[in-house]
């Protein structure tokens, strides 16, 4: 790999890509394949595919703490420990919170990983298209601004990225969840098949349940191996069986000979040239030496993950843009969104005690949105989808409280009762006052100011959660599930790790930061194609949409470059 680790003289490339995660990897692939010399900047260390997945092949007993955290890790990761993702299994892929603090005006859980590949290595891999119900939602109910694109604009690009990435799933012919180019679907287990049938029969297919559409290969694809059903994805896959920068976009970009990757490169700001009215490059701090350096290019793709991107853009101040690059609208840093989740229902399933399964399926089931569609009108707008699944409980189950001894041991080594659960993922509205800004009162390890985050869920989300909980219980009961219990574990912004919206797309430069090509209205050679660009969240997992928008924006950018328009 053509990695340039040394501090070096000022360098000029055709394009700079800031960030190496899902969208940054796609930008690097597309731009290099179109012949551009690209510099991809990543603030963290390099992770080499397979070789650096240190824990991927370890058995449970080879982890000293069996996944748990030591007191030392808890102290240095006060934010990362707030939820399950941070564990001994992939500990090194989560940031040391003490080195990169941020200000929580209100609680916001910011999960970050600084390394090549970024969260593409740890992501949940659920991959759904968003359709016209979502693209039209803002215009129809008046929240936020209208998307500048419709499904027809992005559909061919969904096709394009799905064919490369490899998404397994089942076509359902549902308008609100457009079908894609799927590899064969993973199988539902016996209980899920039964629940699916009963739900779809009862609601006469006005509600459906499908197998999760997931970026795991069910058959070999583009030289990558198929899923081995270990369900250890978040450690990195030695078979390359799920989509990540390392398994998919990076090798394609490297194969062109046009890509330079520079790890340990913190982009502090984008340099604006007021004479050309374009960005001319970036100011980088070397994460190891703290040395400042500049890199220059004709175009810049900003893919720093929504909040990382927010920092770079807001920190890029100039006489022309005193409040952040391309911020003549005053919208930069505003309209921050995340999905709200952690509520639903679960229960016990009887009648399948003679059935089991083989393999650990790294996927669940999906119930796409059905609320506020057609004649259905709720006391909130938008909707939610469910993820979930059925499985037989294991040794953690409670036979009797604090039970122990020989009989207990023998009992819990048998497959336990079947459980089935549904957990909602709800759309969040764009609120102008949910925002981030630069806080100069604190500094990170590299002397940079930090991001302040002021974001909360509001009434619409709270009302939706009641349906998310009760509908789940209703559907499970209809499906014959017993002892159904609802839950709402509370959801703070950031927890779903689906941050979006701080540089939204729109047709009007007065109310949006990016145009319909993810191009800055104000600075034509800067493109933002990570979650920042989202004008609304829909309720589907968003990464596939970032991929499609990135490929589409790269195509446009290179054409504009060739026409000498930028």
């Amino acid at each position, binding site marked *: 790999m053509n990695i340039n680790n040394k501090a070096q003289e000022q360098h000029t490339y055709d394009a700079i890509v800031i960030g190496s995660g899902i969208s940054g990897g796609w930008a690097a692939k597309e731009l290099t394949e179109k012949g551009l010399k690209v510099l991809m900047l990543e603030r963290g260390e390099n992770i080499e595919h397979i070789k650096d997945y240190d824990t991927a092949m370890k058995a*449970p*007993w080879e982890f000293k*703490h*069996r996944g*748990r955290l*030591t*007191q*030392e890790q*808890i102290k240095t990761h006060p934010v990362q*420990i707030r939820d*399950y*993702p941070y*564990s001994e299994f992939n500990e090194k892929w989560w940031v040391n919170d003490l080195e990169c603090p941020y200000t929580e005006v209100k609680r916001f859980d910011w999960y970050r990983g600084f390394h090549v590949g970024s*969260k593409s290595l*740890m992501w*949940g891999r*659920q991959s759904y298209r968003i359709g016209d119900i979502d693209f039209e939602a803002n215009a129809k109910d008046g929240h936020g601004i209208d998307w500048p694109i419709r499904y027809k604009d992005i559909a061919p690009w969904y096709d394009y990225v799905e064919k490369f990435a490899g998404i397994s799933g089942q076509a359902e012919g549902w308008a609100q969840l457009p079908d894609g180019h799927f590899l064969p679907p993973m*199988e539902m287990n*016996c209980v*899920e*098949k039964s629940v699916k049938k009963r739900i779809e029969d009862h609601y006469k297919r006005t509600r459906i349940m499908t197998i*999760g559409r997931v970026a795991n290969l069910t058959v070999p694809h583009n030289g990558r191996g198929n899923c081995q059903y*270990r*369900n*250890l994805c978040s450690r990195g896959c030695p078979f390359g069986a799920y989509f990540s920068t390392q398994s998919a976009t990076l090798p394609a970009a490297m194969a062109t000979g046009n890509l330079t990757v520079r790890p340990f490169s913190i982009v502090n700001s984008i340099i604006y040239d007021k004479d050309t009215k374009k960005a001319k490059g970036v100011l980088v701090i070397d994460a190891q030496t703290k040395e400042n350096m500049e890199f220059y290019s004709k175009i810049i793709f900003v893919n720093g993950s929504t909040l990382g991107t927010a920092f770079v853009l807001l920190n890029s101040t100039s006489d022309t843009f005193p409040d952040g690059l391309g911020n003549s609208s005053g919208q930069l840093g505003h309209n921050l969104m995340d999905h709200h*989740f*952690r509520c*639903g229902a*679960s229960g016990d399933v009887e009648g399948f005690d003679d059935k*089991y*399964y*083989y393999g*650990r*399926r*790294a*996927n*669940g089931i999906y119930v796409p949105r059905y609320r506020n569609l057609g004649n259905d009108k709720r006391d909130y707008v938008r909707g939610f989808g469910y993820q*979930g699944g059925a499985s*037989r409980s*294991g*040794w*953690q189950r409670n036979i009797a409280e*604090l*039970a*122990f*001894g*020989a009989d207990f*041991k*023998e009992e*819990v*080594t048998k*497959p*336990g009762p079947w459980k089935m659960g*549904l*957990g909602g993922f709800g759309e969040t509205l764009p609120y102008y006052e949910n925002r981030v800004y630069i806080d100069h009162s604190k500094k990170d390890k590299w002397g940079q100011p930090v991001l302040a985050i002021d974001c909360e869920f509001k009434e619409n989300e709270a009302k939706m959660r009641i349906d998310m909980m009760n509908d789940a219980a209703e559907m499970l009961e209809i499906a014959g599930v017993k002892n159904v*219990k609802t839950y*709402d*574990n*509370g959801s703070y912004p950031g927890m779903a790790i*689906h941050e979006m919206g701080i540089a939204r797309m729109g047709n009007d430069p007065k109310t949006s930061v990016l145009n319909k090509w993810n191009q800055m209205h104000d600075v034509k050679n800067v493109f933002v194609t990570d979650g920042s660009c989202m004008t609304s969240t829909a309720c589907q997992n968003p990464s596939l949409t970032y991929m499609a928008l990135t490929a589409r924006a790269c195509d446009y950018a290179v054409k504009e470059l060739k026409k000498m328009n930028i």
Partner: protein
Amino acid sequence: MQRREALKNVAFLLGSAVSATTLSIVLDGCKPGTGKKTGDLFTEDQNKLVDEIADTIIPTTSTPGAKAAGVGSFVTMMVKECYPENVQNDFLKGLDDVDSRSKKAFSKTFTALSAEQRNQVLKALADDTIQQKKDDKGKETKDKSKKAADKSKYEAKVYFFQLIRELTLLGYFTSEIGAKQALAYVAIPGRYDGCTDLKPGQKAWAM
């Protein structure tokens, strides 16, 4: 709904930016706090006592028990590295309590008791712990307004028997003996069959 139950439901959620892979192992994470003991936290006698308690919780049956799987040293290592000083002290007191109970009931230390006597001592301890938890929960209900998301799993009160039992189960079922002999472990399944017939005597899959 109790936090523990509620958290387990999260295992069904696969959609956030990370996979929920081995969630259930992580659920009962180590608790934060100040200070950490250095050197030997446990005496040789206490190490032996932990060995025997673990082996009473998971004894040898048709498959080897906790002692064969080296669970005792796992439990003491975890208490030392993953728990704050106050929990470590409570754990040491808990060990003393087990011996006091043994002496009171049978005039011998726990390690000198027969298997049946050990069972009796731990059963009484388990029952008392259940009662204690119930009493504490009664006090807690006044504070119900606190959102579930605000209650860190690292803040939960630690009960000696609950902790040593959980660490014993974790240590045993994720050990090579526990995973391969008490459970069925397949490192690389290679395929997923959603509907198989349960065979007589089939063990649960290890993670």
